[in-house]
């Protein structure tokens, strides 16, 4: 990659875009050369998605020029851009789960012979494409719905390749992947690179960006901050570019010795269909991190403690008294709150307002007619206290950013004054700035005396936030680590030493 730079595949100069008079993008310059992975980073709302839509033909820019393969272009729509050789893999896939891999790959441009779809050719070409990116093991006749998320993503990529894409846009490609699948994606991206395909890689995971990209473009508030060579900057500097803050101030301080108090929640030999022999002590004032691979029982633990999928064996005590957590209501009555991993599917009611979402739990557990005004006033205070940013409390929550949605969910629980808070991937899909706000809130809650259990797949977050860490494997607690453990310690426990323990 240190060869003299080849002529760029894509050149953007002074690109700008406004909606209803609001300028969401302005003055953006960007080049991608063949075989380059060029990362685009920025907080949510920085203009990444808009820029990607401009490049892929979804929006026509109001200002600036775009050249693709040396020719000035304005695309009339996504298909136009596709024909020109720009493919995009969205965060949410556009696949037909009931159809085969090959049918998905050639959807809309099936090879035809004598007026009929030529299935043999279609399967053959798909197999070739798959083999060319080292995914020959994936059968082209397989039903897409039967594939895991990682392999569905491969299908999306092959879909773009089938249209001879020379520039591939990948929008948060790892958001849906488990840790070990990310490595496979890396390999795939590097293969594409070797074929001379330019990759525009949108992500807010700093680590990935450094792992893959040779150049990084930082956007903030719709403007270009800078484009840097990945080798020239450190993670801290990059984050500073994105948010104007240092990485070192990224995690709030841990609990001081003595800050964590008595055992609040204790589980002895807890088990159910997915969990076995869980022994756990959670203290007031501490953040207990829970690590492990996806499917290791991390979420199952939180769900058992919240009564959503209760323990069927063992016993749980809360402040020393035995409790039976048979349903979410029972857990809530006992003072347990659960911030779910799947925010859209289980955390919010997208079509309801910010205020209604924040009131949901209070209304359910303590319905009231008189005193509603005072309750609403309290919720308003809480929404302000967690610093929710929205156009108004009556705005539908689905229009808020992930970080703000999460704060509303948090306000919902704080209204019940919980003694135990269970967080499942509290910052997934949340941009860097809001992420540290959530981290601060989590720590503040612990300082105020709550017992916090926090599940995280992001090792830096897990290590940075936790006072202690337990690591799950195969439905059991594989081990416990003190604050200051390393990523290697966590991974060793998560993967286990014996091969069968690593699944």
């Amino acid at each position: 990659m240190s060869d003299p730079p080849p002529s760029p595949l894509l050149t953007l100069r002074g690109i700008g875009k406004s909606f209803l008079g609001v300028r969401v993008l302005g003055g953006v310059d960007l080049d991608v050369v063949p075989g380059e992975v060029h990362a685009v980073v920025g907080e949510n709302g920085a203009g990444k998605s808009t820029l990607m839509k401009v490049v892929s033909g979804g929006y026509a820019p109001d200002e600036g020029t775009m050249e693709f393969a040396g020719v000035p272009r304005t695309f009339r729509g996504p298909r136009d851009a596709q024909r020109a050789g720009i493919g995009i893999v969205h965060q949410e896939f556009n696949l037909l789960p009931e159809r085969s891999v090959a049918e998905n790959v050639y959807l809309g441009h099936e090879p035809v012979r004598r007026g009929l779809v030529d299935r043999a050719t279609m399967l053959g070409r798909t197999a070739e494409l798959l083999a060319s990116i080292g995914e020959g093991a994936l059968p082209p006749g397989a039903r897409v719905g039967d594939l895991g998320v990682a392999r569905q993503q491969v299908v999306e990529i092959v879909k773009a390749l089938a249209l001879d894409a020379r520039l591939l846009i990948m929008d948060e490609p790892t958001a849906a992947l488990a840790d070990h699948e990310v490595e496979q994606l890396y390999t795939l991206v590097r293969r594409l690179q070797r074929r001379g395909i330019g990759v525009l890689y949108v992500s807010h995971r700093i680590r990935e960006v450094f792992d893959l990209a040779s150049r990084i473009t930082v956007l903030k508030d719709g403007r270009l901050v800078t484009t840097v060579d990945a080798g020239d900057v450190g993670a801290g500097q990059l984050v500073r570019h994105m948010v104007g803050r240092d990485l070192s101030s990224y995690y709030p301080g841990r609990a001081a010795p003595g800050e964590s108090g008595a055992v609040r929640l204790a589980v002895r030999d807890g088990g159910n269909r997915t969990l076995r022999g869980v022994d756990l002590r959670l203290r007031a004032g501490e953040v207990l991190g829970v690590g492990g691979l996806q499917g290791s029982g991390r979420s199952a633990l939180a769900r058992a403690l919240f009564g959503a999928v209760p323990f069927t064996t063992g016993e749980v005590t809360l402040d020393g008294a035995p409790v039976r957590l048979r349903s979410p209501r029972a857990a809530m009555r006992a003072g347990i709150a659960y911030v779910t991993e799947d925010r859209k599917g289980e955390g919010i009611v997208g079509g309801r307002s910010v205020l209604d979402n924040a009131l949901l739990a209070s209304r359910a557990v303590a319905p009231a007619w008189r005193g509603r005004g005072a309750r609403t006033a309290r919720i308003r205070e809480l929404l302000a206290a967690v610093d929710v940013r929205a156009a108004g409390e009556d705005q539908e929550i689905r229009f808020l950013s992930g970080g703000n949605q999460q704060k509303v969910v948090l306000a919902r629980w704080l209204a019940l004054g919980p003694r135990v808070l269970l967080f499942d991937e509290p910052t997934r899909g949340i941009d860097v700035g809001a992420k540290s706000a959530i981290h601060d809130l989590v720590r503040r809650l612990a300082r105020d005396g709550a017992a916090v259990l926090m599940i995280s797949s992001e090792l830096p977050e897990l290590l940075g936030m936790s006072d202690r860490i337990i690591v799950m494997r195969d439905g059991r607690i594989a081990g416990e680590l003190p604050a200051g453990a390393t990523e290697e310690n966590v991974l060793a426990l998560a993967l286990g030493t014996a091969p069968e323990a690593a699944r």
Partner: protein
Amino acid sequence: MRIAERRRLPVRPGRSRSGSLLPILAILVALLVALTLRQPDFLSPPSLMSFLGRSAPIILLAAGQYFVIVAGEFDLSVGSLVTAQVVVAARLIDSEPSRTWPVILLLLAFGAAVGLANGLITTRLRVPSFITTLGMYLILVGAVYLWSDGAPKGGLAEEFRRFGRRAFEDVPLLGRIPYALLVLLVVAGLAALLTRSDFGQTLVAVGGNPRTAELSGVRVRSVKTAAFVLSGLSAAVAAILIGGYSGVSFQAGAGLEFGAITAVVLGGVALGGGRGSVVGAMLGALTLETLFTLMNFYGVSGALRSTVQGAIILLALAVSSVRSVSR
């Protein structure tokens, strides 16, 4: 800009606030204007009062159906429930005025029980409500035939019928106010209060995302069952008015379930749940009745009613899904 400092959503051009009553009000006003052009005295108090009285049952049913639909379910059983109620009332009262009030209480209990059965079968046995209530519809039709040996027996006492066809006479300005209208106003007021209560708000959240609701401590199954009970109760009240107004027949409630669903959808309530207001649903019913009256005046065949209802449902769904895609 913290939320505590700014509460109201700024007006965003080109996007009407969801759940707004403006579209349905606009349609209603347009239809009323068309109607007065054709029939200038339609808006005169006597004609308007009797129109509102006549429309009361479908508006009540729309209110009941609102609770079920906003929670993400359907109630197809209300039409045959109304028929069953009217036939049962006639046979039990058997023209004996003193039985009026006991029978009214019995009808309310009957409606609630049918709603309870619908709710329990849907939530506990996990039968989709479309199927549950379709089954209930068929069961009620058959049971009523069987119970009355194929022809309605007995008769409704005048005591009972007055709710559907009598009015306060000689009211200043308005002329006469049908009892049915008063019943409607009371029930509508209760329904509006209920939707503002925690139960009503929780119900909409259940329709919007049952998983989130469950994990926020909502007893989703009980809340949905309660919605079916409300629908059954509204059918009972509607049956009392319909029996009074048009008398006893096996056709008393025919097709009302589709009328109610059309009205609710027309009123801006999302099929599938999670969005809409009970006032919108009731305005939808009023609009539908206005439309039918208009069709009547223009000599359009009454046979087109169901075609119009079908078209409205399809159109409303198409509009709402186009809107949600463009967001």
